[in-house]
């Protein structure tokens, strides 16, 4: 049949737009802001307009029906639960970022700043629902390109310029690597649609090993590695975090990671569709590769963070380490499809049980917790920085326990959460990830006890991490300032930080709603467990 007259295709093409209405609203708002920003330079105005845009997007996300059953599976957008979860995380991040970036937005560049922010958020949200290599790539670039501009906007020093330049060059390179990987995937399957690629490769993989597909996916992982700051693609992070403007860096620390991880999960077939099959040679190569990446990333991030005296560089390396923790979720999820789940029990009963943590759900919980505490930490730094005196070194925070009790209190909450102490969101996230690694089905040929080892390495690293975070708390509370710092008096930033601290504590006391949401987005796969009677 001629596709021109295929009614289903027509419906799909029309229906697809309804799935991205909130993103369209965001980009529309950004266009308005860009356009009229040339005429009017008002910080308050563009802040309000952008915020209303985000609210509008939220309302649309809540009201527009996404359920369109007649949609072709080969459409380039999928409206599944994962996509919705990512969208909400992105939209809430947008609102938070608008608030906390307040002090660094200058009057003359306000429109560009907020416009770029909205576009980047729309990109992150689109990554969650991309079902096509091209959509995925475009969505990822939709995050990157505004980020280049944002890094350049408030250029004051050479350090700023250097940071922006480095980010640009390395980001372009990583995109190129990713495209190279995509070309393999397209070449092997003849389609850019992710569903088709997954199906084809799964079928092919069940018969014989496909080395080229693995090469393609390794290149893709390399490209995504830049976004999620996996070692050895993390080099830009410390330099950019140090030189970039605080609010942009906060965004840079969270949105690309969110997008990167969901893209990784999507391409590996770990979310959406049947997660019992993954298209790549799961039981031998891929989990091991990711396992190595995770360990390298966690360890290197943590040991280098130990040596930093600059708080932004410290947070950069800590963000590298947290990226590594999140990789654990991916590693665990990769293991599940291959598990046979044979258990031996004395009563010989058979029932279907799943692992308690699926990996991706833990990853989602962690990324929300990570977002809360990272945004929060940068918000406090922004709040305490003034144009005359930036908070750069850890020593700049000395004595703020006395002079700025609220800032210090919220910062302490974020740092405790970054350590992963109980009753903070960070603890809930770490607990789920570690439990995932500890209970992962260990009956695949190559992995065996490696999951437990991973959990142990991660736990040791969490202890190392505690050292450098606690050091900051010690400086804040136990030392007195040589030069007391002024705060920027940016009320929105302070409010943002307090709300984030409240949320961190809330999800620490009561993580169930977050866990439920993450589980809805990425249900724990069920493994039919064959329980055989005890031999003895």
């Amino acid at each position, binding site marked *: 049949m001629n596709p021109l007259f295929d009614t289903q295709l027509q419906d799909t093409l029309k229906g697809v737009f309804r799935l991205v209405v909130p993103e369209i609203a965001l980009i529309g708002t950004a266009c308005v802001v860009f356009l009229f920003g040339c005429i009017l330079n008002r910080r308050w105005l563009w802040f309000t307009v952008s915020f209303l845009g985000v609210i509008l997007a939220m309302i649309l996300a809540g009201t527009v029906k996404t359920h369109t059953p007649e949609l072709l599976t080969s459409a380039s957008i999928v409206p599944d639960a994962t996509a919705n979860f990512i969208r909400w995380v992105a939209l809430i991040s947008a609102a938070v970022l608008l608030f906390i970036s307040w002090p660094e937005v200058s009057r003359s560049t306000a429109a560009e700043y907020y416009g770029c922010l909205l576009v980047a958020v729309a990109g992150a949200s689109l990554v969650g629902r991309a079902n096509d290599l091209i959509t995925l790539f475009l969505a990822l670039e939709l995050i990157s390109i505004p980020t280049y501009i944002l890094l350049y906007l408030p250029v004051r020093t050479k350090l700023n310029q250097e940071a922006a330049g480095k980010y640009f060059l390395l980001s372009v390179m990583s995109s190129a690597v990713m495209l190279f990987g995509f070309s393999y995937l397209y070449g092997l399957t003849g389609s850019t649609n992710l569903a088709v690629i997954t199906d084809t490769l799964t079928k092919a993989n069940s018969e014989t090993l496909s080395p080229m597909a693995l090469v393609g996916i390794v290149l893709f992982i390399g490209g995504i590695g830049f976004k999620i700051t996996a070692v050895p693609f993390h080099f830009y992070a410390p330099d950019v975090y140090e030189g970039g403007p605080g609010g942009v860096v906060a965004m840079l620390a969270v949105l690309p990671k969110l997008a990167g991880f969901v893209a990784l999960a999507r391409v590996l077939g770990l979310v959406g569709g049947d997660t019992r099959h993954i298209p790549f040679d799961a039981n031998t190569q891929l989990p091991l590769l990711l396992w190595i990446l995770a360990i390298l990333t966690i360890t290197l991030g943590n040991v280098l963070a*130990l040596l930093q005296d600059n708080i932004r560089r410290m947070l950069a390396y800590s963000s590298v380490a947290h990226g590594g923790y999140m990789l654990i979720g991916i590693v665990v999820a990769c293991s599940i499809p291959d598990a046979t789940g044979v258990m031996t029990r004395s009563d010989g009963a058979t029932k279907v049980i799943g692992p308690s943590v699926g990996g991706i759900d833990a990853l989602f919980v962690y990324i929300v917790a990570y977002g809360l505490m990272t945004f929060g930490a940068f918000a406090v730094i922004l709040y305490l920085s003034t144009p005359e005196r930036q908070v750069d070194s850890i020593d700049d925070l000395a004595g703020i326990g006395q002079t700025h009790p609220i800032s210090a209190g919220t910062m302490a909450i974020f740092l405790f959460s970054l350590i992963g102490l109980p009753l903070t969101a960070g603890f809930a996230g770490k607990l789920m990830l570690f439990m995932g690694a500890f209970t992962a089905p260990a009956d695949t040929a190559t992995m065996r006890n490696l999951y437990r080892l991973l959990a142990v390495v991660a736990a040791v690293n969490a202890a190392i991490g505690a050292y450098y975070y606690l050091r900051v708390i010690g400086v804040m509370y136990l030392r007195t300032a040589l030069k007391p710092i002024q705060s920027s008096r940016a009320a929105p930033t302070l409010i943002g930080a307090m709300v984030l601290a409240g949320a961190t504590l809330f999800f620490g006391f009561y993580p169930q709603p977050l866990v439920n949401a993450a589980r809805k987005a990425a249900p724990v796969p069920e493994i039919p467990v064959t329980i055989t009677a005890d031999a003895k």
Partner: protein
Amino acid sequence: MSDPIDLALIILALPLLACLNAAVTAVLKSSLSKVAHVPLVLSCAIGAVLGILLLLKVADGETHRWISNPITWFAAGNLKVSFTIAVDPLSAIMLAMVTFISTWIAIFSSGYMHGERGYGRFFAIMSLFVFSMLGLVLANNFLLLVAFWEGVGVCSYLLVGYYYEKPSAAAAARKAFLVTRLGDVGFLLGIFLLWKMGGWNTDLSALFDYIAKTPPDQGELTLACLLLFCGAVGKSAQFPLYVWLPDAMEGPTPVSALIHAATMVTAGVYLLARCAPLFAMCPAAQITVATIGGVTAILAAFIALAQNDLKRVLAYSTVSQLGYMFLALGTGGAISPVFAVTAAMFHLFTHAFFKALLFLSAGSVMHSMGGVIDMRKFGGLRKLMPVTHLAFLCGAAALAGLPLLSGFWSKDMILESLEMAAEGERYTGGYYVLLLVSLITVFMTAFYTFRAYFLTFWGPERIPEEAGHHAHESPSRMTIPLMILAVGAVGVGIAVEPFNHKFSHFLDHAPTLQLAFATSHAPVLEHHGFNWLLASIGTALALGGLGLAFIMYRKGTETLPAAIEPVFALSRNKLYVDEIYGAVFVKPAGVLAFLSGAFDGFLDAMARLISSLPRFVGWWVRPIQNGLVQFYALSMALGLTVLLTFVAFKIAR
């Protein structure tokens, strides 16, 4: 509003709001912190009104227990912990009592603490304390209960150590916290054991039902009960863990009133009352509870005989009275647990009134004496402080168990339960001895209470020089609570129990008590009349103690005949229990600590060695972060190559 659960939640939320409010004003050093007491007083007062409403609702209701829909707090495997509260006669009565007593203590504190440093902090912690206690009372989940239980502990630590600049206060706070923690270890173990036995339930109601239906191994259940009792021993200051309570007098006096009268120390009694269905199944655990209660009652009463510090006399009397409550609790099973628990709860209820009254009166004395509380330094305050004097007299008479006052009725009920248990089937001899012990304690109680009363208020007027211009009756916001509580101490007993049996009928309906009765296989209690013989013996003993105190102390000074001096010296030195603990536990622990310290030094060195490893690794890999973007790009490319090679080799193999 109409649902009891909603009412209870509102009562629970009020002090939390008050706490947040007081904390915010205290942190911001706002001028509002001068009126920090207002939120607490209001929340307690409204809570008390709502609590009495709730009480009426529960009494009228067709059903006798409401359980809120559980909200999952966390769940992992078999362990599921939820936020859930239960309103039944037992918790309703505690709720009303705690809020009522707290209201008057809060009002009193606003006068007592006037002008102290950290006024806002004080009321913030007090509010949190009341909140934790109410949560403890309502919690229908063991782990939730533990959370509030520890919350009470933390607040008491903060309140006892309120004058944290004072070394003795800091030490007392630490002691209170650590000693109760000792008991808590057992408590937690007990909960886990019950969790295992009780079909992996942590909700109290579900757990009790499960255990009643499928009775576990008797030995295991007894062990679990005894472990729970450990927690109660720590919290309710029973032998051998009572040592923290007298030291806790270092806190401001209203705190002592709050901790010792209505809250904290009664938590242990309440816990056992709540868990009556479990205890009713284990006679061995019950006799242990009763024995510990008896030992504590007489031991603490003996120590109270010769204390010179007015507050310490009261503190030891609290310990002793709590022993009475455990005595009553310990008879459940031998007799109907409904009666045993009712006796204990009734004594808890009346004790809350007169002990709060006594402490607040002592606080009033201390306030006007400029912080002096040693009875040797003042005396004859009858004329100077008429309201305080009368209030203290009411409280003392109630505590001594003089006829018709509230303490008389509740003590009588306890004696009666012991007497019935002594006529029962198991451990009759034991219960008989315990009955004798409690009768002796009645005598001693009357004696030391009135000793304190005569020493403080009779004889020639003596005022320490620290008092200065303070030496006058306290302001009205301190005396009004005294008057109200005095009325309660005198009348609350006769009003609710001896003639109309309102209290016992009310508690009769408590589902847990009914369950306890069903599991205990105790003989059905035929309602026999007032036990005139026992009541007369008790009255005679109390009057005897009073009389002896009058003869010895009516001049307001202490002159001891040489014959009983050694006995008093023994009592004054608290039977050397602190010293014995010091020699038996603390000294060996000190040696052990030294050895551990040496070992720790070794481990520390090793740990330092290990902990320097990450730093070394970091220092070693640091040069790769050299800031050159070309190098970064090259590393990324090389990294990718390594990954690809890795995959290639793995496939080739």
